[in-house]
């Protein structure tokens, strides 16, 4: 894909493809914060809906090192870098990407707002995002799924997200 606007190389950090079963990418920021992005195969999500393999992946953004020792400083190049990695990986119409905002530290809504804003500001028109809010005590675990409208398993994906939303009802 030709990079446009905020995805141009000069507007983001270089990243490296490490690969492996969990599709690992890496980049670092000018503050030397070290990020790893993984796309972990998660076809078990569709086990009750589809026979055979589904290209579903859980996207995890992990901070491997934060030498600032404080809250990670805001950095305008981080988001375009993650987006460039997303598109580097998401090339197939058959891919489904799941992103989870868990409630372990009480910041799930902030993460979800950020992720949603990123999606609506930057992603391609043919992609669809669907969310599921699952009660977790007095908080929520929030799941987002992204896929192409042309994905052959689109209807099963809708059904899966509907059932995940209803998990505790």
């Amino acid at each position: 894909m030709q990079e446009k606007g905020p995805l141009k190389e000069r507007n983001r950090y270089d990243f490296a493809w490490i690969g492996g079963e969990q599709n690992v990418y890496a980049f670092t920021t000018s503050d030397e914060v070290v990020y790893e992005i993984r796309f972990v195969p998660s076809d078990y999500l569709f086990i009750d809906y589809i026979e055979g393999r589904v290209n579903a992946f859980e996207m995890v953004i992990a901070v491997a090192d934060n030498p600032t020792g404080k809250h990670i400083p805001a950095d305008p190049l981080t988001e375009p870098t993650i987006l460039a990695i997303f598109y580097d990986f998401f090339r197939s119409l058959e891919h489904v990407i799941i992103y989870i905002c868990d409630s372990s530290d009480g910041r799930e809504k902030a993460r979800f707002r950020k992720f949603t804003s990123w999606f609506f500001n930057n992603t391609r028109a043919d992609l669809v995002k669907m969310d599921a809010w699952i009660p977790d005590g007095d908080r929520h675990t929030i799941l987002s799924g992204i896929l192409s409208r042309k994905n052959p398993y689109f209807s099963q994906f809708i059904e899966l997200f509907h059932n995940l939303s209803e998990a505790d009802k």
Partner: protein
Amino acid sequence: MKPMTAREKIRRLVEVKEQVQREARERYQNDPEYRAIFDELKKKNAGKRAIKGKK
């Protein structure tokens, strides 16, 4: 694979996320080859900043 309930799937997603975050930190601390990839990226960043600073 056995059928899973929605709650089990959500639990597994959360566990995978936590495990990846833990592994990333541990690997960076303990695996010199892995760390070298990031050192190379840091050098690239510094090089880009130096070029930008000269413009």
